[in-house]
């Protein structure tokens, strides 16, 4: 039988970000502030366009990015789009996320890279689109919805093989787009 799992069972720790007021952003100083806008296709995060939030927002431990975090855009048109999932491969500066992103650390049973690919499949996107709810007239993925997403979890050897194949395909695509 397939080892069908919920996403919730593969999250060791996760949370939404914070929502500073629109007029509180800083030109410099403070703490780097990542929004869903900075999440791009092909797992690209545009760190250069991050805003800066007042340093007091750093007190929200839950909103602090960690290396290896999987990020999911949970509000509006970005949900289940090509830019809705990213993985934090590297982190060169303390950063907090805003409330339109859910960040989580995977358990030992699964790699972040594998979850990145799984959450980008149509199978998962359909689940997200079918379950999202309206919150103040904006589509939204609640923690309950995220936890309940289901998919088969192959063993780690197969996870590794599938991730390697997707990595090669992504690289080939990026090369072609760069040529274009």
């Amino acid at each position, binding site marked *: 039988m*397939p080892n069908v799992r919920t996403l919730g069972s593969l999250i060791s720790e996760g949370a939404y970000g914070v929502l500073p007021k629109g007029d509180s952003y800083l030109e410099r100083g403070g703490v780097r502030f990542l929004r869903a806008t900075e999440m791009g296709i092909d797992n690209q995060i545009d760190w250069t366009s991050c805003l800066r939030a007042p340093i007091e927002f750093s007190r929200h431990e839950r909103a602090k990015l960690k290396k290896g975090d999987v990020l999911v855009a949970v509000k509006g048109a970005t949900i289940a789009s090509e830019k809705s999932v990213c993985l934090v491969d590297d982190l060169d500066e303390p950063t907090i996320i805003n409330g339109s992103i859910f960040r989580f650390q995977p358990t030992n049973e699964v790699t972040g890279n594998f979850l990145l690919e799984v959450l980008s499949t149509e199978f998962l996107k359909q689940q997200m689109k079918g379950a999202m709810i309206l919150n103040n007239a904006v589509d939204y993925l609640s923690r309950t919805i995220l936890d309940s997403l289901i998919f088969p979890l192959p063993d780690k050897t197969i996870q590794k093989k*599938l991730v390697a194949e997707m990595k090669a395909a*992504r690289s080939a695509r990026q090369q072609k787009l760069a040529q*274009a």
Partner: protein
Amino acid sequence: MLSGLDEYLLSQLGLVPQTEDNRSVFAVRLAQLHSKRIDATAYQPFYAKGHPPKTPTKSLEEIAEIDKNVAPRPANEKDLVPYVGLPECELTDVREVVMRPFFEVRGRSVIKQGDILFARIEPSVFNKKYVLVDDLKGKDYAYTSTEFYVVRAKPIYVLQEYLYAIFFCSFVFAQVKGKTTGSSGRRRIGLDLFSLLQIPVPNRDLQKSIATEVSHRRSEARRLRAEAASDWAAAKAHFEQELLGKSTKP
């Protein structure tokens, strides 16, 4: 293809690569400031000191019309009209034309076949999202997003295809970068400064030759993008099949 266009344009036009100029002391004519913004960054010289362009330049407002199209008004406010916004465009092409109620798009700019759509707001303005409208999917016109300027060359000065090409040149792009204003994440280029961009205007033969080369490069870029999209779709389908099928069987 399009990413290597800058080098080609610079060499054809005898221009040197441009970088943002941070000079804080320079002269401008008083008439340029009259009734306009007075922040210094908006008027900084755009070419490296001692390297003025060898090709003559004219301001964009002199050689092109910006946001001048009009469309017939529908009988009813709720009538559907064609619309092309940022999401309906690829980097250089119109992907689809959607229909929206007139009351939602009233007052916005109108695009027609052959127009250039210049994305004016971050991040598109820095990604060079410049669309040449060569396929309006059978529509005569479409309303567009306020995030685009609609540009049409005045034929007595420049060819439309040449004008489109020159937006990709660092000589123009350096000016665009220097003239964006606003806070980080929301930077944009205002119409007053966009109109003042200095555009190299070579002779008609060179314009034609550049336009032909750019048209060829654009077709090739389109082909590569389509190929990349198709290969990627196949890879994703394979992954999904492995995930949901074979790999999960006991």
